[in-house]
């Protein structure tokens, strides 16, 4: 069994990282999962959260805001809508993300007043954002 797997993190604007990873923790839509080399082929969507990549050089953390991941035994590609290294993220960027989530929630409450589905989804987005804030030590307000 190989001990590393090719990992690529790409956002629409550029390739953020391409390393040989030992394990990758992915915030997938149905819960965090850790992918290691020789993982079964899987395609999953992402929720906003923290992506952790462990390679020989250490661990890199990224804040991702959705997108999807393609996992195969020999390669893991994460296609994120927006991805920022945790070390570089600023309070302003974080505030903008939280604001967007809150706006989506209030819009959902307005448009789908009688349907639970979309409102719950938007509320989940907000709580995901708050959870990111806790992780990187920033407050949601």
């Amino acid at each position, binding site marked *: 069994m190989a001990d590393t797997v090719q990992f690529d993190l790409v*956002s629409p604007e550029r390739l953020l990282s391409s390393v040989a990873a030992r394990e990758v923790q992915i915030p997938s839509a149905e819960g965090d999962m850790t992918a290691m080399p020789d993982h079964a082929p899987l395609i999953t969507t992402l929720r906003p959260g923290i992506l952790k990549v462990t390679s020989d050089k250490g661990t890199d953390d990224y804040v991702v805001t959705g*997108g999807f991941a393609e996992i195969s035994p020999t390669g893991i590609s994460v296609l994120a809508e927006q991805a920022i290294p945790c070390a570089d993220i600023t309070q302003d960027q974080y505030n903008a993300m939280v604001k967007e989530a809150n706006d989506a929630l209030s819009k959902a409450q307005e448009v789908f007043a009688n349907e639970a589905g979309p409102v719950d989804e938007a509320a989940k987005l907000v709580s995901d954002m708050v959870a990111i804030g806790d992780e990187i030590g920033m407050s949601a307000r």
Partner: protein
Amino acid sequence: MPSLKDLKSRISSVKSTRKITKAMQMVAAAKLRRAQEAAEMARPYAERFNAVMGKLAASVGDNDEAPKLLRGTGSDEVQLLVVMTAERGLCGGFNGNIAKLARAEAQKLLAEGKTVKIITVGKKGRDVLKRDMGDHFIHHVDLTEVKNIGYADAQGIAREVLDRFDEGEFDVAKIFYSTFQNVVSQIPTMQQVIPFDIPETEDDAATADTLYDYEPDEAAILAQLLPRAVATAIFSGLLENGASEQGARMSAMDNATRNAGEMIEDLTIEYNRTRQAVITNELIEIISGAEAL
């Protein structure tokens, strides 16, 4: 015959024009490099995205459960053309070529009795199409204020298009932009984004056969990805356009600079000839005056 003074002022005016075109060429060259880099950096995302889309679309197939964005509304009566051009002129045939392609498509559709709606992105395309297609315009996206095209801009346009699709305003959407080949050639391109045109994946059969697990399930993922596919297609169109625009401007300005140089040469020859004629004239006058004495 123009006087010496006229010639002199024409030469100096052409010279300053040449300076301007030269400067524009250099600015375009610098911007081209940046635009090309941006286009190249966006390529990995688009490639991988399309590969995954191909796999997903193949596994969901053509059944009735498939989302409308993938299989279409079942009609092609109302077509939306998203024409993406530059915000500025002075870039050779760049804007005109895209507009020409869009106009040809619109006329073809109209001849077939279909309804055409047009969204323009970029001021120049709107100006060119306004005269004969102005009635079909439904929206205009202004990117004048945008210096560097970001994914957010593409998302904005995509949302505009998708909202209209959800409201049943059209059945088929096509985007028009220019593919960047190199500095001298940019190819106006038409691409269908709704229903989603499944790209040819270049993966070999081995990977195509791999059975993927899907989380949540294929349909849910597809429903999330299809709107993004529209945004991604628009984004790469915008980036290609950005590089093409600068490339076209660079070669147009190079031509202009060269033409100005030729013009200066011609004018200088004429100027010198006229000056010589004036001198000869004066000499003849002096000599004949002296002989008369």
